[in-house]
């Protein structure tokens, strides 16, 4: 073998997840995303096969995470989901009995046909180039799908002027384009009848829109008639509804509903539908019914007939403070009969209520029920879908699926909740893993710090009664060898207590979403421990928190750890009011139970935010001094702190002269990083003020993509010892951080000193070209991570310059060292940045070909930093994969390593980083669209916990250098115990015999 030592080197790192560990040490949760309820063409709807039991129904929806999915109505599990590319957003979906047709991309560029029950993609057709798509607002405007009767073909309207007939295989039968694209007619709806296909649009005239209808031949696509209907629609497509039986168009004109029936010659005259005035009309997705909202807020159901319309009004639906505005939704049962439901929250009852109207039953039956919807934890109801499964003479018992403002999907049948899905977890923006407190013995729940000597002795005396139990437990445990091993699942001794396990594998993951919620998950299983609504300032004490402002999380800090007396987290959020102003609020939570520290420790209520700045904060930092506090800078760079206590104020005052803050400055497109020092009492109200001290010289047109800071983890060794026992001292200056930036022609990465602004490293990278990222020309896809003295970045190299070079992902590994070589020491960890020596730095740098595009990157973290740090990435194949540091060592040798290099375990350089399937941490799971990975140390030095979030959530643990600090699973404990016991028995038996023999030898010595 040519390179035998290569395999020796790799033997240590080749460690795969054992089959027995899969699913035990890891978990994953699949999500579909928060349903896209902006339009009825993307919102959830039920799909039930005729004659099948209702539990087999599917809930089909497209979501804000760009997923088309079907959920089982029986238990809420995912039947199937199809994840669209980020630049291919779903704008429209429509289903018939067996298939779903979806349009995605700008103007509906791509058509896909799915099988309803399995989600199999039957056909995919590009209708026009995405670049030719017209961007619409709302995005589904100008796109529509209608099914041709019986043949499985569909008519598709895209880009508001092109109509195609597409067969079940996705092939286009004919295409009709509006002859005058420049004209002001924008088509938005299709009505398919056997005799004609009506394309309904609006033509812009002076103050309003006019209805314009074109009738096409269904078989040939030739235009039959083109007609302007005399009308005046003020607001646009929201006031336009279409119906198929009878085929007609309804619109709102000056508060009155008008209707025109459609027949191939388009000769029918429009007429007023009824004498009532409507504020708005609501499309509920039915063939002949819609809801009209009257000026007093009450809702009428209007059912079209051949000649006119039937009218029925929901009782007690007028505007009132006893209940909220209603959500209206239509449904059809197995026989195709329509139902219209009204779902609202009743302030009077403190419950949600649903009224279902069945026009055909008993001359118009309304079946109503209330159900205990948990509005305090799930927010408000924003959408409902109804499935009428069991129809009795007097009762309807519908399934009601609610979508809430916090992204929860709940299925209620009557007042029983069947299942709930926390789809808000697909919108996690930031997460932290927090160590749990140790389990305290009984009676030790109170504060031990205040305990006196006598109390302590008494407590120990009381505890002593458990000693026999403890001893018995100890000996059985010792004898049977039933220890917890690193590979065993972490099972809590008491399921209801949140305490640390022996190895610290159990942590709390606190995650903030951009839906204004804060979740705590159990890191062993991913189950939700608590969920809290973040108050937007107006609804703290309300029993039905209607969101009036957007609460967007900005930073999440651990203010207190478990060892310091109970973990506490602080979430810094920007509160955006609907009318513009932005405030900075802080939510302070005790992490184990989710108790509010700002409010009055109310459990189960909404988290109350403390407003720190009346305005946006440009940055916030956690300052870890004698006390820990969060420091904020407002737009005028004035300093605010939280918690604003005497301790933190005095800490800040003493730290102020030594604090240096690099900030992003400049306008978007010509950004800079500017270093600031803090001057006391220069700001308004005696606040400290940040004054600029240095600035970078980024070229004009460059914008900053990300700032990569180093985790403040313990560093086990300040140097790297070489084979000849000299040392390369690591550059451990605490002020270094990396900045990635992009301009139109290039991307770059820099390592800067945060105090002085010195550029320690600068590399210019090529931009991604158009062919690799369609529609993202000149984009920079640089992912970087910086730990200790090790900077790694992955970028797309569009084209090699030389012969035989290929495009692909590149990973560059850079290690920074002090001085010019081994044993050249400057003591960077404790060195002032202003000392000239601080710039005496050398680096090793090596580029490799990386097998994957990555969407998130991090390294493992361990308690003491002794264990080698593996790179953990989320790759484009929706997997979480780890790469050993050994392979990314920039000092890998060229050619055969010398004896000294061998001693250092250096592996010869190979341009390709091997794509080792054994190191896929997520094994067979698909972890889709990951955009963040959080790692956190366990109590075991060897092990690091991994949590990945994106559309899906994934948790596992990895041991980069194997679990060297626990006995392996194969260790034979029984053999050891038996050997020791056997030896003990032998000694006991042999001791008297040996004594007698010795005595005899004394007497009878020859």
């Amino acid at each position, binding site marked *: 073998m040519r390179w035998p030592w290569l395999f020796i080197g790799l033997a240590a790192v080749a460690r795969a997840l054992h089959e027995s560990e899969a699913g035990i040490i890891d978990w994953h949760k699949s999500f579909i995303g928060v349903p896209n309820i902006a339009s009825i063409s993307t919102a959830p709807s039920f799909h039930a096969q005729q004659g099948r039991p209702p539990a087999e129904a599917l809930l089909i929806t497209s979501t804000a995470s760009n997923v088309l999915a079907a959920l089982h109505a029986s238990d809420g599990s995912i039947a199937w989901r199809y994840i669209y590319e980020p630049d291919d957003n779903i704008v429209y979906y429509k289903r018939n009995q067996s298939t779903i047709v979806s349009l995605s991309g700008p103007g509906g560029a791509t058509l896909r046909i799915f099988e309803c029950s399995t989600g199999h993609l039957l056909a995919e057709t590009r209708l026009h180039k995405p670049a030719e798509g017209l961007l619409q607002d709302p995005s589904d405007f100008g796109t529509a799908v209608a099914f041709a009767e019986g043949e499985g073909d569909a008519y598709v309207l895209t880009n508001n002027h092109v109509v195609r007939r597409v067969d079940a295989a996705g092939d286009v039968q004919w295409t009709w384009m509006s002859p005058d694209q420049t004209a002001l007619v924008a088509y938005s709806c299709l009505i398919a009848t056997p005799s004609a296909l009506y394309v309904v649009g609006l033509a812009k005239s002076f103050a309003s829109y006019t209805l314009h209808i074109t009738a096409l031949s269904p078989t040939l696509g030739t235009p039959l008639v083109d007609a302007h209907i005399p009308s005046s629609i003020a607001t646009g497509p929201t006031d336009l509804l279409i119906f198929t039986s009878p085929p007609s168009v309804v619109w709102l004109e000056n508060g009155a509903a008008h209707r025109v029936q459609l027949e191939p010659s388009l000769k029918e005259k429009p007429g007023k539908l009824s004498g009532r005035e409507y504020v708005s009309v609501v499309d509920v997705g039915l063939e002949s019914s819609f809801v009209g909202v009257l000026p007093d807020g009450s809702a009428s159901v209007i059912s079209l007939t051949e000649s006119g319309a039937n009218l029925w009004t929901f009782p007690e639906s007028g505007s009132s403070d006893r209940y909220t505005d209603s959500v209206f939704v239509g449904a059809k049962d197995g026989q195709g009969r329509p139902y219209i439901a009204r779902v609202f929250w009743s302030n009077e009852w403190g419950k949600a209520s649903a009224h279902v109207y069945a026009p055909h039953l008993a001359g118009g039956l309304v079946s109503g029920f209330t159900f205990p919807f948990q509005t305090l934890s799930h927010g408000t109801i924003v959408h409902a879908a109804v499935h009428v499964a069991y129809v009795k003479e007097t009762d309807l018992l519908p399934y009601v699926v609610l979508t809430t403002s916090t992204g929860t999907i709940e299925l209620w049948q009557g007042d029983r909740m069947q299942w709930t899905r926390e789809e808000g977890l697909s919108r996690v923006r930031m997460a932290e893993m927090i160590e749990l407190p140790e389990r305290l013995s009984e009676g030790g729940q109170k504060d031990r710090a205040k305990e006196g000597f006598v109390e302590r002795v008494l407590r120990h005396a009381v505890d002593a009664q458990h000693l026999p139990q403890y001893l018995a437990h100890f000996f059985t445990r010792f004898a049977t060898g039933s220890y917890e091993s690193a590979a065993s699942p972490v099972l809590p001794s008491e399921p209801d207590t949140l305490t640390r396990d022996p190895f610290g594998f159990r942590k709390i993951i606190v995650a903030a979403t951009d839906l204004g919620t804060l979740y705590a998950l159990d890191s062993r299983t991913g189950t939700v421990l608590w969920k809290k609504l973040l108050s937007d300032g107006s609804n703290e004490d309300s029993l039905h928190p209607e969101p009036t402002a957007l609460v967007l999380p900005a930073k999440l800090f651990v203010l207190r750890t478990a060892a310091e007396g109970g973990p506490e987290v602080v979430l810094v959020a920007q509160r955006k009011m609907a009318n513009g102003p932005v405030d900075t609020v802080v939510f302070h939570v005790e992490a184990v139970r989710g108790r509010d520290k700002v409010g009055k420790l109310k459990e189960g209520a909404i988290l109350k935010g403390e407003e720190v700045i009346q305005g946006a904060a440009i940055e916030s930092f956690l300052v870890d001094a004698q006390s820990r506090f969060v420091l904020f800078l407002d737009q005028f760079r004035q300093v605010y702190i939280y918690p604003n206590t005497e301790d933190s104020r005095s800490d800040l005052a003493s*730290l102020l002269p030594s604090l240096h*803050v690099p900030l992003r400055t400049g306008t978007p497109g010509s950004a800079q990083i500017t270093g600031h020092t803090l001057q006391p009492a220069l700001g308004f109200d005696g606040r400290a003020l940040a004054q600029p001290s240095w600035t970078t010289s980024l070229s004009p047109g460059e914008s900053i993509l990300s700032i990569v800071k*180093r985790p403040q983890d313990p560093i086990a*060794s300040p140097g790297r*010892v070489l084979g000849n026992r000299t*040392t390369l001292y690591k550059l451990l200056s605490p002020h270094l951080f990396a900045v990635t930036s992009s301009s139109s022609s290039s991307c770059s990465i820099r390592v800067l000193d945060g105090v002085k602004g010195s550029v320690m490293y600068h590399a210019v990278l090529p931009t991604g070209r158009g062919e690799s990222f369609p529609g993202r020309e000149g984009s920079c896809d640089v992912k970087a991570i910086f730990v200790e003295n090790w900077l790694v970045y992955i970028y797309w190299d569009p084209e090699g310059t030389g012969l035989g070079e290929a495009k692909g992902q590149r990973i560059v590994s850079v290690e920074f060292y002090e001085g010019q070589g*081994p044993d050249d020491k400057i003591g960077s960890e*404790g060195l002032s940045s202003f000392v000239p020596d601080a710039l005496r730095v050398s680096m090793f740098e090596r580029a490799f070909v990386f097998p994957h595009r990555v969407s998130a990157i991090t390294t493992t973290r361990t308690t003491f930093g002794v264990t080698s740090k593996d790179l953990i990435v989320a790759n484009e194949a929706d997997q979480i994969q780890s790469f050993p540091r050994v392979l990314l060592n920039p000092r890998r040798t060229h050619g055969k390593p010398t004896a000294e290099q061998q001693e250092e375990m250096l592996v010869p350089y190979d341009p390709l980083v091997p794509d080792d399937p054994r190191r896929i941490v997520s094994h067979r799971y698909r972890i889709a669209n990951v955009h963040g990975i959080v790692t956190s140390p366990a109590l075991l030095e060897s092990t690091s916990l991994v949590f990945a979030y994106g559309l899906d959530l994934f948790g596992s643990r990895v041991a980069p250098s194997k679990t060297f600090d626990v006995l392996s699973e194969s260790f034979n404990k029984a053999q050891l115990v038996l050997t020791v016991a056997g030896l003990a028995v032998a000694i006991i038996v042999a001791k008297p015999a040996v004594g007698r023999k010795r005595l005899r030898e004394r007497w009878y010595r020859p």
Partner: protein
Amino acid sequence: MTHTTLNYASIENPKSRHLPPPPGFSIASVTKSYEALKERRAWDFAVGPAKQLPMQAFMLYMSGGGVQIFSIGIVFMLLFSPFKNIAGINAAFAQFAPGTAPSPSRAQTFTTLPLQKLAYIACNIATLALGLWKCRSMGLLPTGSGDWLAFEPRGVAPEMSLL
């Protein structure tokens, strides 16, 4: 019951000790050659460790450069035996003390046979040196900066940057 006691005291002073020497036997000449013999033996003993050095070097060579049980055993022997020898130097040389020594206790002091003892120490140091050389070649001597890395002081930077 009668007790039987053994009179060991009578063994300590045998009567044969006071017998006159045989004819022609001069106690002085015997003592003189005996002293010369003792001195020669003392020198032999002093350079003894040096004589073993080639053999030990050969054993070291044979035991190889790796850190294994054999090489470690030999190296430990080489490192510890000089100290053990030097610690017991006076006792070891007491048997060679000249008969002119005033008292047996004086024989245990360093001033008796000083040259031999110095030679002995030098030879032991040579053994120790061999052991240390072996240690060094096995990489067991903490000579590089890497061996002291964990003890190096690590400072705290005077500035604090918020990132």
